[in-house]
């Protein structure tokens, strides 16, 4: 099966991802990043994880992180699990591409927008709001394993010159809507606003922003007004940075819009997240000492700026070695 997954990955590389809200260049970048994670070594490691595969799995994905299903499909299919991806009604996004490619190499992957598919699965993985997670738990079989990945957010702590470009890429991939997107960037640098603005402009020239819906646009302009009064704003075509004081921190994902906070103390920055820290996913930082404050606040993943949206397949996700959750562990006692 691992050979088929490799063939699937290689076939996907030849396709142009369309059908998303991202710009063509933005979609291609997200697509490439997702496929880059499926290295031969990573697939081999995933295939070798001890345990018995589930016969069937249903993966419930959010519509606007279009490449999220790729690693789930790969990791499950290479163990021989039959995968059904449930997408939001009328928003299949890139999934038809994945399925057509899977069919061409004989991988058991299908898609549906019918929530009842959840009831047939031995393993259910759900990404979405608390409400979605609750509904899926109710719809799943009582004996099914349910892996819930609720909405989370990520932050960055950046200090060095090179870190700003990586941070801008992290903020641009998926147009900033994913749980690995840095929604807040903290920095002790006096020139952080200018450095990040230069980087965002350069990245936006390469990966233009995709569609922004009305409520997102209004929310960006609302926060922009707050920043004009209490901080500063830098913006270009499709991107913006809102510099706000530490006591204005709210971890909201707005497309291509980063909340920047000048702060000398990583502990104070992490503390400002308050109870939101429970929903913190990743901290991207070039300062190893600073990372610990965010881990204490709740982060379950630490990486360099530029790698936040490029997680390896074999990793800890939401505090778990996620690949191990995709198989049934078997105890063999003698």
């Amino acid at each position: 099966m691992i050979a088929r997954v490799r063939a699937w990955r290689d076939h996907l590389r030849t396709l142009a991802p369309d059908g998303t809200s991202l710009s063509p260049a933005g979609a291609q970048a997200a697509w490439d990043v997702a496929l880059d994670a499926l290295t031969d070594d990573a697939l081999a490691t995933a295939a070798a994880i001890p345990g018995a595969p589930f016969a069937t799995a249903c993966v419930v994905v959010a519509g606007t992180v279009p490449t999220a299903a790729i690693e789930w499909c790969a990791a499950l299919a290479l163990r021989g699990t039959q995968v059904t991806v449930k997408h939001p009604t009328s928003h299949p996004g890139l999934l038809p591409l994945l399925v057509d490619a899977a069919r061409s190499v004989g991988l058991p992957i299908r898609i549906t927008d019918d929530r009842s598919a959840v009831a047939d699965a031995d393993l259910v993985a759900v990404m979405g709001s608390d409400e979605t997670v609750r509904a899926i738990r109710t719809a799943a079989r009582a004996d099914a394993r349910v892996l819930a990945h609720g909405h989370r957010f990520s932050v960055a702590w950046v200090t060095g010159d090179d870190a700003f470009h990586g941070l801008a890429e992290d903020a641009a991939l998926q147009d900033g809507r994913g749980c690995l997107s840095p929604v807040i960037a903290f920095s002790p640098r006096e020139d952080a606003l200018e450095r990040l603005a230069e980087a965002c402009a350069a990245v936006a020239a390469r990966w233009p922003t995709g569609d922004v819906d009305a409520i997102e646009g209004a929310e960006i302009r609302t926060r922009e007004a707050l920043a004009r009064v209490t901080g500063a704003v830098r913006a270009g075509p499709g991107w913006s940075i809102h510099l706000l004081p530490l006591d204005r921190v709210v971890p909201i994902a707005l497309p291509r819009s980063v909340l920047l906070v000048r702060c000398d103390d990583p502990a104070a920055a992490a503390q400002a997240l308050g109870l939101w820290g429970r929903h913190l996913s990743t901290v991207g930082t070039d300062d190893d000492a600073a990372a610990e404050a965010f881990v204490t606040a709740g982060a379950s993943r630490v990486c360099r700026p530029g790698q936040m949206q490029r997680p390896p397949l074999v990793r800890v996700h939401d505090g778990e070695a996620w690949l191990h959750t995709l198989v049934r562990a078997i105890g063999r006692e003698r």
Partner: protein
Amino acid sequence: MTRDLLAQRIHRFIGDSLVGRAEPLEPLMLEVHRWQRRHDPVLNSLTAEDPQEIAQIPAIPVGIWKDLPVGTVGADEPSLVFHTSGTTGGGRGAHRLRTSALYDHNALTWARVCLKQWPTLIVALLDDAPDSSLGHMTRLFGDVSWYAKGGVVDVAGARTHLAVDWPLFVATTAFALAEYLESAPPPLPAGSLLMVTGGFKGRVHRLDGDELLAATRAVLKPDRLVTEYGMTELSSQLWGTAGAAFLPAPWLVAVAADPLSGRPLPRGERGQLRFYDLCNLDSTLGVETMDEGTVTDEGVWLHGRLPGAPARGCSLTVEEAWEKR
């Protein structure tokens, strides 16, 4: 120009505008705006250039009223304060007025124009909250009995009060009305007027706006069913009827804007609603809502909250962020 002189001019404008002899609105609004800018640091920070027309006056987004002290009234000045409901999270915004004189005068004047007359015994499916602008307005219209507490309708109490044979004015939010209808109540007394205001603001209910009004007609059979559009951040209201545009008063200018760029759209195009309210003398003329509408010669067509994608990714949205705090 002092605050009191501006208040007198606005008061005069309200009366004069209804008989077609008011001073031009735009120069008056621009004068009020310049006065406000001198006394409101928030507005001043958001004003890049001196506006030459109403649409250039900054409209303060409703979302930051909870974060910033919007308006010209200092926190230590005596004032009447209306608070937002806080349904979208992150605390409650405050609309401070030095006096309610302009609010009261304009609310009553425009209601008389739009409703002509109404029963003055009022049954309100509302909380008796002193800091609610809706409650304040309702009190202006007559003798009010309140039948909600903590946002929960006292259905039994309201039904008892409504079981009379004289006309009543029933004031309700859409959500409270939907809750009341679920009790399968009898029709209202003959001659009654029912005023419904506000949307569901994300609260889950099985009736949408049109269905709610249809169900209201079928069940409560009010002689008159009117809709009101108002908000804490505004001093003026718009009135309508089911299936018709909301009518703004002559001292309230509605503009639809592109939600992404913020640029005003031509009349007739659907966009994010902003209002410029001459009676917001103590706060700020321009208020940007999170509602979508179309401004036409007939009035303002309200389409509900600004639309968003059905699925918004796996990171936190505004409302989720506040819920999870």
